[in-house]
């Protein structure tokens, strides 16, 4: 028989696709996806419809932007709850069930196994986003910017991939599936809530007392310096998605706006460049602040790529060292 040689240390797209298709098939057979995706869609639909009816009654303006803001943030929050479960037991679960070693002795390389597993988990996460596309189109029909919707969904998809990669890495590093599962949720918690808490603490710690002298006399004033610690907020997925959404330049006097994405983006930018809001002669807000999302997206990309590299290294055989309590099989 002819031998089908693989690159010695390499990566072959077909190999990764073999793993990804296999993992995807296992996922489809294992779960009750129709029910899960149905519940996902219905709850997001109810939310979007709720926002719409609340706004349509109170306002003249078209509610699409606000509908999409609420939809996007809720969807991101729910997805961050679902996604760690997709990858956090991928490697150590296989090892526990005696499936990993037989995979490693095939001609599949560590990179192909790791990237295939990541692709399957990431693909599943993207299925959740895709399920919500009809709702996003509804928002566009109600006046949301199509570009804004597309960019937000795209950025969210990238960020979910980062969470998948971190979870996969934890499953490759840790022997126990429960530990890697818990730590994956902690990682999501650290990114989405921990960054905010640390930012607030850092603002409190970096505030200074300055002495001001005015006509009324000399007095001391406490001054905060969020511009020194704004980068702590940057890796937050909510802030990245909100800030990356292209700004809608609408008249500021058009009534009460919710636009949650825009509001969060503004808060983040004002932390980076405080006191720079400009109102030009025509009364239109000049959005001259520096964006936060490029830093956030880059830091997430580094996190995700680093996690993938560690995963590949942990799958390399022959093993030199094994963690305690791990049996190779």
């Amino acid at each position: 028989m002819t031998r089908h040689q693989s690159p010695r240390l390499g990566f072959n797209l077909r190999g990764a696709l073999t793993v990804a298709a296999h993992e995807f098939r296992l996922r489809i057979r294992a779960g009750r996806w129709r029910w899960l995706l149905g519940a996902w869609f219905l709850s997001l639909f109810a939310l979007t419809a709720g926002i719409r009816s609340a706004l349509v009654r109170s306002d003249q303006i078209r509610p699409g932007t606000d509908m999409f803001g609420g939809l996007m943030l809720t969807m991101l929050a729910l997805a961050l709850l679902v996604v760690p479960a997709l990858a956090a037991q991928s490697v150590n679960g296989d090892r526990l069930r005696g499936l990993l070693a037989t995979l490693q002795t095939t001609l599949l390389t560590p990179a192909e196994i790791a990237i295939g597993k990541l692709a399957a988990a990431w693909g599943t996460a993207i299925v959740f986003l895709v399920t919500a596309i009809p709702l996003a189109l509804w928002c566009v029909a109600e006046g949301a910017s199509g570009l804004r919707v597309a960019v937000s969904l795209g950025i969210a998809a990238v960020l979910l991939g980062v969470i998948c990669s971190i979870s996969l890495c934890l499953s490759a590093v840790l022997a126990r599936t429960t530990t890697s599962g818990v730590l994956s949720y902690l990682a999501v918690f650290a990114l989405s809530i921990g960054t905010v808490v640390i930012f607030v603490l850092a603002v409190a710690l970096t505030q200074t007392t300055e002495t001001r002298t005015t006509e009324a006399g000399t007095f001391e004033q406490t001054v905060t310096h969020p511009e020194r610690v704004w980068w702590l907020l940057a890796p937050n997925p909510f802030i990245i998605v909100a800030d990356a959404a292209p700004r809608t330049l609408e008249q500021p006097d058009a009534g009460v706006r919710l636009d949650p994405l825009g509001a969060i983006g503004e808060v983040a930018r004002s932390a980076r460049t405080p006191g720079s809001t400009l109102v030009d002669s025509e009364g239109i807000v000049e959005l001259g602040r520096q964006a936060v999302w490029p830093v956030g997206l880059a830091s997430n990309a580094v996190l995700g790529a680093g996690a993938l590299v560690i995963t590949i290294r942990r799958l390399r055989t022959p093993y030199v060292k094994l963690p305690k309590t791990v049996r190779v099989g």
Partner: protein
Amino acid sequence: MSAGVALAAGIEAAGVRRTFGNVVAVADVTLSVPRGHVTALVGPNGAGKTTLLLVLATLLKPDAGRVRVAGFDPVTDSVEVRSRTGWMPDSFGTYDTLTAREVLEFAAAAYRIPRQLRPRRAWELLALVHLDEFAERPVHALSRGQRQRLGLARALVHEPTVLLLDEPAAGLDPRSRIELRGLLRGFAAQGCAVLVSSHVLSELETIADRVVFVDRGRSIAEQTLAELPRAERRPWRVRALDPGPLMVFLDHHGTEHGPPDAHGVEVLLSGDEAAAELLAAMVRDGIPVVSFAPAGSDLEAAYLAITEDRQ
């Protein structure tokens, strides 16, 4: 299989050592597994059999020693070794929701067998291990023995020339065991090198024609079954009409023996002369002996002799 590879020995290992922290799993193993033979790897639990097989299967790096599998170093040439080696671990999982055919087609894909060849290969293997009627059945619906056979088929998917089988007969019914024996002998006859670990000695005796004994991480002896030494001490089984006087006699005579049961008593004797002497003494003392014969197999006797100092 190309001619150049065929000339190389299946497996050559010398001075292999592998530790896990302070635990020495394999201390010093030297063995060779020639092509055309089934070699048994025999030793007590914890002797290092599974660890040794993991080293040969390119999963563990040995701390020391020289290893060649199908002519290649499993550490530096793992791809070459993997493309020629079929490994069946002692315990392995199966993708429960896939069918038997899908499991084999995925394994074929993982060995980079072209897509159009995979279905035929899967069916060939299913027929080989007599699972063709279960091809479309999900693996979770298969019995333990059927899964074991599927695991064997999986290890054969890329037509390896070296087979590493860790306890392959565990969970197999008698018919499957006999078929496994036929399969392994067939592979050997085709020029494969087959290494089988087990502690079911009576079974290995019918499968293997060579044996490597390992104990506490060391290879102790390597020989063909035909040249197994007549063991120094081996068990004999004595049955008497009345076990009472027999036990009194054995104690008095100073013969090492086990507890009596329905099939008699096992005594440990050094050589045929000792057996003849004991039988004569029993008859002389009027013990109503019904039967007196060597117990166990030659392999078992050799195994017991080699691991004797553990007691």
